[in-house]
């Protein structure tokens, strides 16, 4: 199967700093890939680049069949991304937030806020509490539940375990496994909780200084099909 994420010497720059300094990477449908590495290695930037939030300025990047170098905007609505910050509206209640973001994502009106909340076992009493009042873990659960409800084929999760309690972790891991195994979703997660994350992942990639340090398998898939893109090799650094 064609890789969902296909990067060849991808470079991304934050300010003037090349947070990704030439990353080559394949991830296939149904695969759970753990991205690990020291602080500041570029893990978050890698996930954000795949989500189309950060431009890839050198190299090649094709995600979900979309060429990010040519136009990264279309990929955004296709991925499910959870970053370090929640981005929910603090002043709006949990239910209102869930409803708004589900509608915005074009989810069917049949999917109720309650059912989204239930997917991460968020207590019903919290539905009417403003998100700003939630505990860290409760907020995290809302973000994860929203992301997982999008029906995306690529999940990009930045330290998803952070803040979750034991139950939450089990629930989350089960959801990820189910998505990968049953639905063929490709999951990339960055994490520092190596034991937990490695037991969940099929494969681990170590990022150091913006480049892949050690990947167990050589990345050798051919470029996936894209609209009208000639694979041009522009290796940098």
């Amino acid at each position, binding site marked *: 199967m064609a890789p969902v994420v296909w990067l060849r010497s991808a470079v991304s720059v934050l*300010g003037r700093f090349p947070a990704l300094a030439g990353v080559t990477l394949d991830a296939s449908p149904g695969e759970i890939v753990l991205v690990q590495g020291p602080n500041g290695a570029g893990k978050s930037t890698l996930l954000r680049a795949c989500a189309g939030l950060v431009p890839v300025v050198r190299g090649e990047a094709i995600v979900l069949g979309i060429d990010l170098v040519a136009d990264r905007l279309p990929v*955004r609505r296709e991925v499910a991304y959870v970053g*370090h*910050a929640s981005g*929910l*509206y603090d*002043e*709006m209640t949990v239910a209102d937030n869930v409803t708004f973001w589900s509608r*915005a994502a074009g989810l069917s009106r049949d999917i109720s806020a309650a059912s989204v909340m239930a997917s991460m076992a968020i207590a019903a009493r919290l539905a009417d509490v403003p998100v700003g009042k939630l505990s860290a873990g409760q907020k995290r659960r809302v973000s994860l539940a929203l992301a997982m409800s999008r029906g995306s084929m690529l999940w990009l999760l930045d330290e998803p375990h952070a803040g979750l309690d034991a139950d939450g972790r089990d629930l989350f891991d089960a959801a990820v496994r189910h998505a990968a195994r049953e639905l063929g979703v490709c999951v990339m997660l960055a994490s520092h909780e190596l034991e937990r994350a490695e037991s969940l992942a099929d494969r681990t990639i170590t990022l150091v200084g913006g480049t892949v340090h050690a990947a167990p398998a050589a990345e050798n898939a051919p470029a996936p099909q894209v609209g009208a893109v000639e694979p041009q090799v522009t290796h940098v650094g």
Partner: protein
Amino acid sequence: MWGDAALVAAKDLRLELRSRVVTNQIAPVAVVVLMLFGFGLDADVGVLQKVTPGLYWVTVLLMALLAIGRSVDAEATAGARDMLRLSGLDPAAIFLGKAAALVAQLLVLEAMLLMGVSLFFHATIKGYVLVFVAGLLGTVGLASIGTLYGALTGGTDSKQTLLPLLFLPAVAPVLLGAVRAFEGAFGTNPHPDDGWPWVRLLGVVAIVYTAVGTLAYGPLLEGSDPA
């Protein structure tokens, strides 16, 4: 797209309904500002009446700035911008929705302010239709410029650019046109023209900026947080 715009507008209005900042807090402020103007210029009633349209629109501008601040703050955190970008909402829809919510809030404020002005400044409205049309168009112009301006200033890095200076030439014609139109409507205009010609200016600005916003909001939302 219209559905998305309605969704966003409803969301912004819901945030307002929850906090009631505009109705309960910005509104009284508007009244107080008017009073300060009135008292600051009390020297003679003639001057006061002459500057009433100007004071009215400056007050509206201040209210608009506060309301825009609120509207921008809602999406100010890095996380919220990401969510919005990933949401799948058409940027044009986001722009239209946010501007519409702003128009709704400002219109309520302006109606209140108009009552205040006629009570405290003894302004007598001669042309109701003119006031209504000029008010509406001016508000649409302000709201769309404000929403654009918000996108420019919302991201962290753009604070260091001179982009916000664009606000200046954009908002000046709106306020000017609106003031002139109101001078016509209040009968305080020394010139014989009755204000309607200015409405055309307001209309043009409203249309142009709504169009510009609809097209440019995407790139702005995009470019406003380079990190």
